Structures are given as structure tokens and as C-alpha cells.
């Protein structure tokens, strides 16, 4: 037991905070992520993450809590994406080649200037790849509130989002404002990405958003089940990641814990890979469509 679970894990304040943040992030990412995969918006999620990096490093430069930087940049990017139509092919090209490049370039500048100013080289790493152990306990209520807001948005829009994913034209014909719904959803996505960025870093945040959701969609038949499975999978990856990172303090090189985000993304990958695609559950009546109605 000693080797699996180093003593003092749950007595540590930062670990308890980390475990709590893990719950908020995994549940939010699970719920939002399922819709992200259904709507084919993984690319949008990743773009938001890249732009959030700029916001996080900007916040670091001016000495603000990085979550606000992630959030502000993410929401602004969501609005921008809606404007350039990132769902269209041409919009994607513009976003990838121009906007995301510029965003990460600005992040490089902010991180360079920030680390020069404060001589804290660890900050770049924290923003890019996350460090769930250094999040201050004061931030937790804000994270919880943001997560709840994102989840509520998606719950209220759930049916409309599903109908729109099935066919935007059918939704439009029935009076749904598809564009408005899409914009509201992108904002919820931006919040979710920001939360994930706090936990495992801006660059990796999509892993927690898309990975568990993609795994869940292979095994669940209804959206509600998929969300529950995605949240549980993400939570398992995050918590086990936290425990392993805590333990790794005693691994080589001795006295330096490995990053939590490394463990989380590896566990997300491990959750996705082994499951073979389920054989479509089609019972013996394979040709039933031919029977007289």
C-alpha cells in the first residue's frame, strides 16, 4: 500500500484542493465534451485552448489570476470564431494559419516578458502544461461557479443542440435560432476549456475535454449516459493522475514530482485505446426493414 499511496496524501492541503478541482473540471469537461464531439467541434475546442494560452500568459504578465486570463481570452475567441465561421473549411484555414499562430506568438512574448520580470521560470510551464497543485484554494469557488454555469447552459440547450446536430435545417425550420444557440454553446465551451487549462494546462486542456467524451460515446447509447461516463472517466484520469504525481516525488529524479498533466493525458489515452469499437448491436433481424410494414 505504501508504494501505491504515499503517506500523507489526503492530509496535504494542495492535494485536497487539487482533488476538488479535479471533480469540477472532469464533470464540466465530460458534459460539455460530449456535445463537442457530437457537434464535431473538437477543432473549435482546441482553438479556444490555444487562444486561452495567450490570455493565461497575459494574466501572468500583469499579475492576475491565470483563470481570468484563460476565461477572458477564451470567451473573446469564441466570439471571434463565430464571426469568422470556424465551422466552415475556409474559416478553419484562416483560424489555424493566422489567428492561432498569432495567439501562440503573443503567448510566447508574454511568457518571456513575465519570466524576465519575476524570475520565476516555472510560470511558463504552469500556464502551458498546468499545475493543479499550485492553484490557490481561494480560486476554487470561482471554478465551481464557472463549471455550474457552463453545465447549466448546456443542460438548458441540450435538446436544441441535439436537434441542431441532427440537422441544422430541421432545427431552423422549427424556429430555432441556430446561430444564437451555437454562440451560447461556444461560450460554455470556452468556460470548460478554461477550467481544464487550470488543471492540466492550456495546451493540453482539449485532451480532458475530448478524450473522455470520445471514449464515452463509444459505449453509451444516450447522451445522458455518455455525459455520465465521460465525467466518470475524466474524473478517474484526473484523480489517479494526481495520486501518481504525488507519488512520483519519490521516483527518479528523486525529489522532483512529475507533472500531473502527463499522467492525466496518458490515462485519457489509455482509456480510449483498448476498447474495440463495439459491434453494432444488431440482433438477428438484420433484414427487418424488408418485412412488410
Amino acid at each position, binding site marked *: 500500500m505504501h508504494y501505491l499511496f504515499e503517506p500523507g496524501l489526503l492530509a496535504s492541503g494542495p492535494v485536497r484542493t487539487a482533488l476538488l478541482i479535479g471533480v469540477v473540471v472532469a464533470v464540466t469537461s465530460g458534459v460539455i465534451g*460530449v456535445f463537442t*464531439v*457530437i457537434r464535431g467541434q473538437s477543432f473549435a475546442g482546441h482553438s479556444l485552448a490555444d487562444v486561452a494560452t495567450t490570455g493565461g500568459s497575459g494574466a501572468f504578465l500583469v499579475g492576475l489570476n491565470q483563470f481570468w486570463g484563460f476565461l477572458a481570452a477564451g470567451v473573446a475567441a469564441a466570439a471571434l470564431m463565430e464571426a469568422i465561421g470556424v465551422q466552415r473549411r475556409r474559416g478553419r484555414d484562416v483560424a489555424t494559419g493566422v489567428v492561432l499562430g498569432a495567439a501562440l506568438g503573443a503567448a510566447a512574448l508574454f511568457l518571456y516578458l513575465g519570466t524576465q520580470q519575476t524570475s520565476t521560470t516555472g510560470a511558463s510551464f504552469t500556464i502551458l502544461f498546468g499545475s493543479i497543485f499550485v492553484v490557490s484554494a481561494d480560486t476554487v469557488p470561482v471554478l465551481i461557479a464557472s463549471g455550474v454555469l457552463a453545465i447549466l447552459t448546456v*443542460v*438548458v*440547450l*441540450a*435538446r*436544441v443542440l*441535439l*436537434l441542431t*446536430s*441532427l*440537422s441544422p*435545417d*430541421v*432545427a*431552423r*425550420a*422549427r*424556429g*430555432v435560432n441556430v446561430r444564437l444557440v451555437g454562440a451560447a454553446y461556444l461560450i460554455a465551451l470556452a468556460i470548460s476549456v478554461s477550467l481544464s487549462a487550470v488543471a492540466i494546462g492550456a495546451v493540453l486542456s482539449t485532451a480532458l475535454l475530448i478524450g473522455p467524451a*470520445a471514449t464515452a*460515446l*463509444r459505449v*453509451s*447509447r*444516450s*447522451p445522458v*449516459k*455518455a455525459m455520465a461516463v465521460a465525467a466518470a472517466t475524466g474524473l478517474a484520469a484526473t484523480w489517479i493522475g494526481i495520486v501518481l504525481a504525488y507519488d512520483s516525488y519519490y521516483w527518479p529524479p528523486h525529489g522532483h514530482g512529475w507533472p500531473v498533466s502527463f499522467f492525466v493525458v496518458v490515462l485519457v489515452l489509455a482509456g480510449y485505446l483498448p476498447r474495440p469499437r463495439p459491434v*453494432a*448491436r*444488431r440482433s438477428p*433481424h438484420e433484414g*427487418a*426493414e*424488408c*418485412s*412488410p*410494414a
Partner: protein
Amino acid sequence: MAQKAMPHDLAPAQEAPTARDDGPGLLTLDGIGVRFGGRQVLNDVSFTLSKGEFAGLIGPNGAGKTTLLRVILGLLQPSGGKVLVAGEQHLRSKQLIGYVPQKLVIDPDMPLRARDVVSLGLDGNKLGFSFPSRQRRALIDQALADVGADSYADHRVGELSGGEQQRVLIAHALISRPRLLLLDEPLANLDLKSEQEIVALLGKLAREHEIAVLLSAHDMNPLLHVMDRIVYVANGHVATGSTDEVVTSAGLSRLYGHHVDVVRVHGRVLVVAGE
């Protein structure tokens, strides 16, 4: 297959106007014109569909069939003319129209069972969650049974064949009890047997539920025995009437603006370009 009495709260279409539509017809298009970037795509399209009438919207690819359906649905603003559904211009008519869009690509990973798709037809345009109830389930089961899709009600739609998906989408469109059903190329990409079954099903639904059906297709042959009316689109113009009235060499040549021959072989109709 008798129509079941609908619980009031689940039957939005029932509150819609019912008394006044027997006069002018369920769907009236009056002088519809559509212009895309300076090009006139449709000119002066006028026709009327009555309750329970089955109409085929026939024409070659690119003739403007989808455009016309989009105008009726209110997805596209015509440059001229008006559309009346049950005597009303668009605002309140949305729930009177059921719509089956042109081939959907549904990923097998999409976590929607056939019954979920039908359930979205009931209230997928509303905010919030729908809570399962016995009433709701019975309604969905009935809609699935009406289209003969009950045996795969719990399968993911993405895993169903093209013909099965069409049935589910028809149930989705019909569960809100529309008065008018629009289908955009529902027979495209179907094997012959599914094609015949879907046509027979739609003919039966139109009769039993007294729904006006407007179905677009580039080939009229599968529809010949069910169509009450043909709406033939070509060259931006429309000719309408019974198949025998409309589909003649003289009539279609006038419509196309060049000579075409209409050939009838074994009860099938071929339209071929002539000299």
C-alpha cells in the same frame, strides 16, 4: 392503424387552426420568385395542395426543388410572391409543417437511438430537458409503429440502413402532427425495395392521417401510382396538374424551353432530350 387520441400537452399542432383550411387549400404558393445573386432561379411559381393530397415535386438535378422546399419552410426569403400554409403566412405555420431533409450523414457514434430522434420531433426545438413519462413513451412507440420502425427503436440511428433512417426521420417529422409533410429527395440512395416501401408508406400515411405530402425526386417513376399531383420544375418554371396533363412532350418542351420527348414504356415514363 387508427390515430390515437393525443394528450393535450403533447399535441402542439392540435391547437393550431383547424377550421379554416378547407377553403383555399392547405398549401398555397402564389407567384413565388427566387433570385440568387442576380440569377433568377424560380419564376412565378404558383400551385395549391389540399388536405391529404400527395404531390411529387419532380425535376432534373439543379432545377430548384430544394430551393422551393426551403421557401415553403421559411428558410429562404423569396424575392417575390407569398406562401400560405393553412391560410396563414409564415409566423404561426412552423408547427404545421413536418420536414424530412435531404440525406443526413449521421455518425455511428452519435448517441441517439431511433426513439430519441422521434422524441426530438416532439419538442427538440424547446429549451430544457424532456422528462420521460409513460404518455410520452406511448406516443413515441406509436409514431415508430406507424412507420414500421418499432423493431429497431432502440438502435442508434447512425447504425441503421438508409431506408430505416428514412422511416425514423418520417416518424420524427410526423409525431408533432403536422398538416403538411415536406420531403427532400427521400428516395435518393435507397435500394429498389426500400424505395418502394417508403413510397407505399408515405401514400398510406397521407391517406390515413389526411396529411398533404410534397416529396421531391428527380425520378417520377417510383411515385406514379401514388401521386395525386405532379409539380414539375424545369428551367426556373413550374407546371402542375395530374401526371397525364403535365408529362407530355408538348407540355414539358414548353417548360424546358427546348424539345423533349416523353416516352411511356410498360407504365414507366422517360423524359429524353430530343432534336
